[in-house]
């Protein structure tokens, strides 16, 4: 589904990613861990197409297409979704209006008819049922005055409604208390399917007790220093990041 090769990227002329190689297949959950400043969020932003990040080398192939050539909205329509670490507040626009605009943008790409507000509410209710949430946030402006937990939950709700093939969760667990974390993780697990995949970026091993990854990668200084199974996450939890040596070949 996703093949990242020798990816170098940075912001303001400073290189942050220094050669990432990563392959994700349908049905897999990959976790990216690493200390602050290792490039985790940069990787997520580059995949989503943030204009401030410049790719200087390497390639990202998504379902046979050059992902880096696509605008952020084209990536979204192709099934890439990023849950933001810091979700943005939008003035005036209600969550329901925003979600319907997003769903209809995607339907337009798929040559499907737009959903009117009534049809959309039906789709929304179904999705809320799946993840076991209520629609209490729907009539409020997007993320405006939301608590930290509500903002993160709102990201997962968007993911549920937009049904991405590849979901990138950028530190969705940061700042959440244990109940909110469980609720978010449960929702992510319920959305897991053999034909979609997730890349879970996190600073804390704790999340991975609830979203069990197939693979764990440790990022250090812009490269994947170590890859393994979920056991690697536990090892990091007990030993910290210091024992991870810089990847071989870094000059």
């Amino acid at each position, binding site marked *: 589904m996703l093949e990242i090769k020798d990816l170098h990227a940075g912001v303001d002329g400073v290189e942050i990613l220094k050669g990432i190689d990563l392959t994700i297949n349908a049905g897999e959950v990959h976790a990216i861990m690493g200390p602050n400043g290792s490039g985790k969020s940069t990787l997520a932003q580059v995949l*989503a*197409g*943030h*204009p401030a990040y410049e790719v200087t080398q390497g390639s990202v192939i998504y379902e046979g297409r050059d992902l880096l050539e696509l*605008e*952020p*909205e084209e*990536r*979204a*329509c192709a099934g890439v*979704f*990023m849950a*933001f670490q810091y*979700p*943005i*507040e*939008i*003035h*005036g*626009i209600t969550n329901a209006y*925003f979600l319907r*605009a*997003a769903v209809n*943008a*995607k339907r337009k*790409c798929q040559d499907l008819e737009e959903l009117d507000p009534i049809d959309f509410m039906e789709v929304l209710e179904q999705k809320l049922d799946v993840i076991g949430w209520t629609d209490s946030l729907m009539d409020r*402006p997007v993320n405006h005055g939301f608590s930290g937990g509500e903002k993160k939950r709102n990201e997962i709700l*968007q993911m549920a409604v*937009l049904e991405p093939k590849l979901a990138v969760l950028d530190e969705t667990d940061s700042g959440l208390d244990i109940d909110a974390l469980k609720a978010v993780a449960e929702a992510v697990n319920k959305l897991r399917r053999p034909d979609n995949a997730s890349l879970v970026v996190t600073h804390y091993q704790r999340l991975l007790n609830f979203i069990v990854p197939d693979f764990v990668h440790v990022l250090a200084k812009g490269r994947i220093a170590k890859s393994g199974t979920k056991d690697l996450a536990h090892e990091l939890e007990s030993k910290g990041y210091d024992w991870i040596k810089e990847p071989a070949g870094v000059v």
Partner: protein
Amino acid sequence: MTKALDVKDKYVSDFEAFSANGESGVPQWLQALRNEAIERFSSVGFPTTRDERWRFTSVARVAETKFALANGERPSIPTAEVRQHVLECGSEQVLVFINGRYSEELSSTGGVPEGVIACGLRQVTGSGLETVEHHLGKYARMTDNPFTALSTAFMADGAFLYVPSDTILGDPIQLLFLTASGGRPVVTHPRNLICLERGAAASVIESHVGLVDDMYWTNCVTEAVVRDNARLHLYRVQRESEQANHTATTQSYQSRDSNVALTTVELGSALSRHDINAVLDGEGAECSLYGLTQIQGSQHVDHHTTIEHAQPHCSSWEFFNGIYDEKARGVFTGRIVVHPGAQRTDSKQTNNNLLLSEGARADSQPQLEIYADDVKCTHGATLGPIDDKALFYLQTRGIDAEVARNLLTYGFGVEILNKIAVAELRERLDQLVHARLDDGAARRRAKNQC
């Protein structure tokens, strides 16, 4: 262009003709008020940008043009055309004014509760109705603003709404001011008086529309007296022609436990200056001011608000959003005066400005004058283009950049429109905001193609 000084003299001599002819025979109290007003105007003349209250807004367009009084002209406008300009609001009650004069045949006021008076001001100024004499011209201070002085000098007609004690006006009542100038620059001075007695409630929509694309001038003053525990929703929609000038004062005076919510939407005119003055003169009074300006081209809109907290335990909220495209310019002044003894004042002011093009400009100035020590006054202002982070956020949800830009701009407008309690009006204004956005987008595309 004519010198502002000559123009001032013209209005003084116009006044002499005005009070000698068409307006002779008015009661003495009214004539005295007018005389005082023209003296005031004659001594101060038009404001200039050297005047602190006018430093961001030049009224040269008005001060250097000789506008003729339009009051006597009654062009006949087909009813169907008039109806087109009535804003949907779920109510049939509408007072129509053509070039500042009340038109009984175009208006409909059937169905108002007993005791309510809704009519042209001219019908009641000479009628001996005490309420009119008691309130007219008593709140909007001519010393504050030369345009108010001019309005008072030339006041001849406008709307009069009286709601007696404990009477609820269920349906909104609309005041529609249509200007059809035709050929030469004309000025109208609509003058409105709204009185809500103790425990009364009403929703009023004041709407200004230009029927022609001419340069004309509307100089409007609305005074609202809101007695104990009364509630007034006042909506003001300014859709003058894009060549027009619009100067206005909305003055409210509130007693104990009363509530005034004013929502003003500015879309039209080349130059618009709207002074909103609210006096909270009874404990527990609340006042909310919401404003949306959405302009383009070289339009200029200035909101100058003054809220006076004269008694303790009063609250005021101000929330003004401006959307400025092309070379449009917006000004917001938020003056809050907390009088000595007005303890436990709670006041919040927010002014957000969205600049959609590099040529657009906005100035925002809070002015807090606090003479009490136990008060809460906060203010905040923002200014800038569309937030890149918000744009990216929407794009990652599949919404293309242009649609996302429109959506974010729309949200800015809707934030204010959501304060409107009349659903039909809110929906109609929503359409107008959308239409303006689409127009802006089309203009941008056309410009990019050149």
